[in-house]
């Protein structure tokens, strides 16, 4: 078979794509009308489970961008067992993540020893004003609804009880 000139082959490629897009549909989706589901592990936004947080400051200290602000105070809580002493617990006053600074590295989620921070694949939270990207603890708590279960692992993986 004689070699086709590259110019003709190139035309063939584009025509081929034209036909394929016409018959099989395009590779793009029309964003606001239809949405792609991000994978489970996608690092979209950080959710906070406030009950678990002991304001230990680990996340704020390990954040490379210094974008987590925590304030807390100590408080007396009713004893666990009847007749025991009242416990002293750390109560969270402020937990802010500044998403204008955050670089989505996930170190805070990893270092959290009490399972208070989670990744959610949610991504639609852009704001007209940059100051609104500072999410306070209520807003971070709302993201908890969108946190999915961790995915199953590929064959051969060592099972671990870690989150």
């Amino acid at each position, binding site marked *: 078979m004689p070699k086709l000139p590259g110019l003709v082959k190139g035309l063939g490629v584009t025509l081929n*794509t034209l036909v394929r*897009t016409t018959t099989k549909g395009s590779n793009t989706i029309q964003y606001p009308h239809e949405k792609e589901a991000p994978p489970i592990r996608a690092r979209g936004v950080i959710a906070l489970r406030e009950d678990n947080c002991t304001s230990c400051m680990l996340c704020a200290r390990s954040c490379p961008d210094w974008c987590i602000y925590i304030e807390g105070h100590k408080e007396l809580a009713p004893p666990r067992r009847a007749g025991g002493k009242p416990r002293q617990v750390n109560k969270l006053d402020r937990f802010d993540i500044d998403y204008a600074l955050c670089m989505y590295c996930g170190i805070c989620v990893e270092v959290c020893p009490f399972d208070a921070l989670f990744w959610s694949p949610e991504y639609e939270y852009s704001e007209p004003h940059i100051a609104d990207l500072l999410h306070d603890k209520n807003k971070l708590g709302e993201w908890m609804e969108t946190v999915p279960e961790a995915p199953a692992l590929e064959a051969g993986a060592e099972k671990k009880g870690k989150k």
Partner: protein
Amino acid sequence: MNALLAADLPYWAQSLLRVLGGIVAVLLPAGTIVYVFLFKMMSFMQSRLGPMEAGPYGSLQLVAEVGKWLQKEDITPERADRFIFKIAPLVVLASTFLLVAVVPFGPDAWFTNFEAGVFYMLAVSSVSVLGILIAGWASANKYSLLGGLRAAGQLIAYELPMVLAVIGVIIQAGTMNLQQIVVAQNAGSIFGWDGLGNPYILTQFVGFIIFMIAVQAELTQTPFDMPIAESELVSGYMTEYSGFRFLTFFIAEFATAGVFALIASVLFLGGWGIPFAWFDWSTIDSVDDWMNVVGPLIMVTKMMLLAFIIMWVRFSYPRFREDQLQRFAWKALVPISLVNIMVTAILKVAF
């Protein structure tokens, strides 16, 4: 139609009709080409859908775009040559309107019908070079200047092959009147067989290819888009234009594509006509009046076909370098078209 355009109407009404017709004949193909090819075909060739929001399937996108451009500020660079800078896009657009004036759309549907039609067509098509050159110069921008100079060099280099390619057609038709060329193609026959008439794309195939290459260069479409060359010269001579003036350039670009496709269909594909043998017509006077309505439709079909090829090539190829283009024009196209003329002339005399 015949009655409408004939002398029944006063002169001013005839003129008005022609002007309106001209505007439609320029803007309608331009809009169609932009939507069908630039927006949709290009997107589909790239596995995407293109504009989908404005109107059904994005069909009103062009209207939205025009609206956007009209709103934009009309910026003139501080050091630009203001007057020339401002008229440059109009000069380019004027060339398009002058071109469409000689294109026949039907046996009686024409704007002007004069003997040296081909000659006129080739002459006014180079007016756009002037516009581009002064746009490049007046912008006071190095990229624009380079783009303008490239455009001038390129358009001049490709005028010649275009002229030479058309000479073959002129020899074969024996006339420079575009209307007569259409008739000659449809009334003609290839070695006595007149089932298809004699569209010159068959007998003048080499000429057709050269003409289309030259058109591609004349329109500064890829692979000959060095004057605009987005990745090198930002936008070439159009860099400094914004708003309405950029829109004018844009319309001119695609309107000229449409008009050149029309002209190519007149010269090589038999224009508005269908082979006369089908209806036992012999001359232009015996053509039925309904061809004045069907003719333009046939023309538009052929135009879209040619515009498809122009755009298809545009979306598939990378661009040449300026010196390669010049070499290609002078060392390949000009000699080939000269040989083509010679062969055509010999055959013409022989048969």
